[in-house]
């Protein structure tokens, strides 16, 4: 009962979307899909869970805001209060309007940078990493779908994939 991974190649995103729906409709398990560009709605067609990156971004933003508040309070109020433009820095609240741009920028900075870094790491992309995509043409003009299949269903799957408009189905040896 060893399962193999078939690779079906497509040349068009609409054909790919229909193929994904049909293959999933037949209860096959799609391991992964590689596309040259983001295909709108593919995540829903594949039944992927919603990304949690937005929650991460919110938390990073809160972190950035906290850092900004702490930083401005330390620099401008506690460590070395300065009288800038006739606005003495006695309390944080008195000077709050002047700190708001800093707080805003730090929130955005933390949220944006940490979100990008998180996204790269979560996608298993880091420096000197070797590309994982099985066929370099998926970075150019080919859409590739990987489908797991049990040995007794191999012929039926090949048939189905070709029916859905695949230009080629690659079957691993043995």
């Amino acid at each position, binding site marked *: 009962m060893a399962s193999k991974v078939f690779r079906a190649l497509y040349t068009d995103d609409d054909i790919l979307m229909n193929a994904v729906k049909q293959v999933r409709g037949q209860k096959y398990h799609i391991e992964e899909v590689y596309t040259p560009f983001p295909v709108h709605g593919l995540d829903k067609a594949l039944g992927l869970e919603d990304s949690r990156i937005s929650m991460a971004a919110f938390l990073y933003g809160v972190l950035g805001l906290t850092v900004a508040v702490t930083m401005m309070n330390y620099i401008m109020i506690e460590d070395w209060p300065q009288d800038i433009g*006739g606005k003495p820095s006695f309390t944080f609240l008195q000077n709050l309007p002047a700190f708001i741009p800093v707080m805003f920028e730090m929130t955005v900075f933390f949220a944006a940078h940490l979100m990008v870094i998180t996204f790269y790491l979560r996608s298993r992309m880091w420096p000197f990493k070797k590309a994982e995509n099985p066929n370099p043409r998926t970075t150019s003009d080919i859409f590739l779908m990987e489908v797991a299949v049990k040995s007794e269903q191999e012929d039926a799957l090949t048939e189905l994939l070709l029916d859905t408009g695949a230009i080629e189905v690659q079957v691993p040896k043995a």
Partner: protein
Amino acid sequence: MYQFSQRFKITTLILMGLGLLGLGYGFMSAPSTIEEAKAMMASHEGGHGEEHGSADHPTLAEAHHGNADSHHESNSEGSHSEDHGDSTNHDAHAAAAEDHGSSHDQHVLDQMKNRPWSAFYVSALFSFLIALGVLAFYAINRAAQAGWSPLLFRVMEGITSYLIPGGIILFAFFVLSGLHMNHLFVWMDADVVAHDQLIQNKSGYLNTPFFLVRAAIYIGGWIAYRQYSRKLSLAEETASDNKPFVTNFKLAAGFLAFFLVSESMMSWDWIMSVDPHWFSTLFGWYVFASFFVSGITVIALFSLYLKSKGLLESVNNSHIHDLAKFMFGISIFWTYLWFSQFMLIWYADIPEEVTYYVMRFEAYKVPFLGMLVLNFIFPLLVIMRSDYKRIPWLIQTVGIVILTGHYFDFYNMIMPGTVGAHWSFGIPELGGILFFTGLFLYVVATTLTKVAVEPKGNALLEESKHFHY
């Protein structure tokens, strides 16, 4: 077809009736002589009344003082630095200082008389500007040939129909102000102008006839676009080609150019001029953001209402999601402009500019800061999450909060300049809100019954029906 049910109609009529009673009470209870005004302040403010006359009372007396002199004092500061050698100007100030006592009393009386007028004006202005915000949103969607929104055009056109009664009411109000029925616009008062160099300098622009002409041009221009665009929009349903659609597209682009200029000038005329010494260069944008987000919120509320009646079947989650995104985004845009205006004035600390905020921080703390919570923090935290922008009851809740918050935004723009430190929120203000809510709902619902709520024949309609996010 939408049916304006008997129950809903009676509700709007009751709202209008209660509102008129509230406003009437406001006018009846306003003092007509200085003695009455003094007696009312003594009884109304209880213990404060005793100390009122003495200069020791720190907050109240100062607030009155700063307020009574909002034309005299900040003027002297401003003009001293601007034209030092102007001796006539100094004489005028000396004269103003001499009869300060009696002019103070007169000023307080004027402010107390202003209260019911201001309560009426804030609601009249806010409801009119909501319809104007919807008109701007509609024109932007037309000019951009947006694919998602044509399904909602009938809803927007229904709301903009309020521009006609709302505009007539506002114009009548301005005529009454010009006839000195109230003192909302102090620059209309020849006595005030005679003692006020700063207003004299502006009187080439700020004078009653020119003010009324401008108001007529703005209101007339906006209503004309609304009527013509509605006509073309209805013609799309039966047209055999795209001609009405294309004409409407060009018309929208032209209107937006007119609107950007007229809206900015409207905000100076109708709102900024109640504080005729004060100015802010981004005021037009700020006012626009406020009524734009209110208008979009009202579109969302009406769309959800009509959808719940089963009349907007093709409107799906994604349309609601888009409206909620605009509510969220423009709320933040409003905050950005509010803060941009505030921070520069706070930092520069120039007397004639900063008095505007000093007044609001000292006498209007609760509505002024509370509004920031309602308009910024609440929408920011509640509808930030993508999924939440599709939940009808949540959008309705946030919508009501946003509308309340922006009502208070306009309240804070008008009241400090007209009523001063003697503000309160009571029967006249509630009456204004109820009356204009009732009138607004009545007019909009009546217009919605005229044609099917789902449009036909728009060139982008199919795209709108299949819109999904």
